[in-house]
């Protein structure tokens, strides 16, 4: 197979605590400049896939037991999470992991440290974030734990942008937010993608929403890729909705049925 110039995930398996097999051979790729959606129900393996890519599994006693992940042709297995961030891959964790005791501004600044920028460059980057999220500028001195859910989601996205990424792994940005805020956040993601050329790998349960913004999508089920295709294709398929809505026995009527061998 050909190695992608960008992100290539090749048939990976992830084990937690040496015992629990969370991913059972997932392959996917993200092209430069695209938005890719990772769909699936709770426990399908979306978060694990993202953490495998960003090398954050170790802190949860997980590890890659098979397969490889390459970033710009480089195998990432041995890299520290900070090395990956420095190379342009950053993950925005599920559930709005702000630093609650730090102010909004300190939260954003902390994302800039990895590049060791000059004081000047750091201040410029901060202004750039504020221009995308004007609301954060008004709240800059407030401790982040006291801001609203939407503001916190903006902080964690802005903080990730401070690392000057080329690929952002975004985990459930819509979780627990009002629909109007979710719309706003997705619009910002689209703007970042169009204007700054940043690629996104988006894990979402809200398939209907994310497929409006994505170029391509993968549907995960039980740690496997159950379906994949262009966003328009997936949006048009009935069975994709079933994965989430449970209108039929999930997966029973998939176009590409997956046999689950015993493990």
């Amino acid at each position, binding site marked *: 197979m050909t190695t992608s110039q960008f992100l290539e995930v090749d048939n990976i398996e992830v084990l937690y605590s040496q015992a629990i097999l969370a991913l059972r051979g997932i392959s996917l790729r993200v092209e430069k400049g695209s938005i890719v959606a990772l769909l699936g129900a709770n426990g399908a393996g979306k978060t694990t896939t993202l953490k495998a890519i*960003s090398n*954050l599994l170790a*802190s949860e*006693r997980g590890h890659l037991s098979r397969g490889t992940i390459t970033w710009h042709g480089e195998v990432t297995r041995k890299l*520290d*999470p*900070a090395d*990956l*961030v*420095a190379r342009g891959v*950053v*993950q*925005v*964790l599920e559930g709005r*992991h*702000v*630093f*609650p*005791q*730090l102010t909004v501004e*300190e*939260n954003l*600044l*902390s*994302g800039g*440290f*990895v590049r060791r920028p000059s004081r000047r460059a750091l201040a410029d980057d901060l202004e750039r974030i504020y221009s995308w999220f004007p609301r954060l500028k008004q709240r800059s001195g407030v*401790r982040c*734990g*006291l801001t609203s*859910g939407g503001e916190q989601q903006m902080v*964690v996205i802005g*903080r*990730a942008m*401070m*690392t000057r990424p080329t690929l952002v792994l975004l985990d459930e940005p819509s979780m627990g937010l009002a629909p109007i805020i979710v719309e706003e956040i997705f619009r910002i993601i689209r703007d970042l993608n169009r204007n700054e050329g940043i690629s996104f790998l988006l894990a979402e349960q809200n398939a209907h929403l994310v497929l409006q913004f994505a170029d391509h999508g993968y549907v995960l089920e039980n740690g496997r890729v159950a379906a994949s295709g262009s966003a328009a294709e997936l949006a048009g398929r009935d069975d994709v909705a079933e994965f989430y809505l449970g209108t039929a026995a999930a997966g029973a009527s998939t176009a590409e049925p997956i046999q689950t061998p015993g493990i």
Partner: protein
Amino acid sequence: MSFFVETLVGGLLAGVMYSLVAIGFVLVFKASGVFNFAQGSMVLCAALTFVTLRDKGLDFWLAALITLSVMVALGIAVERVVLRPLVNRPQITLFMATLGVSFVIEGVAQIVMGASVHELDLGIVDTPIEIGGVQVSQFDLAAAGTAGILVVALSIFFNKTRVGIALRAIADDPQAALSIGIRLQTLWQIVWGVAGFVSLIAGLLWGARQGVQFALTLVVLKALPVLIIGGFTSIAGAIIGGLIVGAGDSVAEIYLGSLLGGSVSTWFAYVLAVAFLLVRPAGLFGEAPIERI
């Protein structure tokens, strides 16, 4: 009245000495969530190293410099050898590990440098001077001044520098800190190095006050109520907690001691600490968790 004021001032200044030890705890706890029981041994180790070097005839500043390097190296080594392999283990495991470390440091320090009591002279005259009709120990004033400088320096470090902000970020959410490229291990080493530095300051002042001896490690036990009262995560809290414990101790000794048959100061601080645990478990300045409902 002037007797009361004198007791109070004496107590407050003595309390600053406890704060110095407590600050070392706060540093490590804030950054890594580890209650470092070995802080007391590090204080002893610093004082013992300094005294031994001075006995060998080294110049004051040279001895201080070497001791500083030893303490910073010791701090970094503890992080690297003991705590790093235990990352993601339960708190109690980490605490037990530092307990073990404290025995090792005490033991090795005394094998290498001897267990006899040394006198430590910092060249600060300990004659009382009179300020506004109150007798104050010069040594206590110097200690308070040192603590003041230390607190200002540390609060600038934590609030204004990148390393400081990153350390606070780690304290808040290590997983998120990792995800944006903060190198936890490098920063833990820095914080343990700084804890080594703080234990040097505490070691010199305590050593000069009490003589350098094994009992120095017991200052940990007095730092505990200071931490509970002030809050485990606040340097300002460590200072205020120290002042409360110091003042409480000496005032209680004078006014309750006669009623209860003396040695009130051995337990008074702990009673205060228990009262705080009941009323305000995060301590006066501790970061009460922000919870969204």
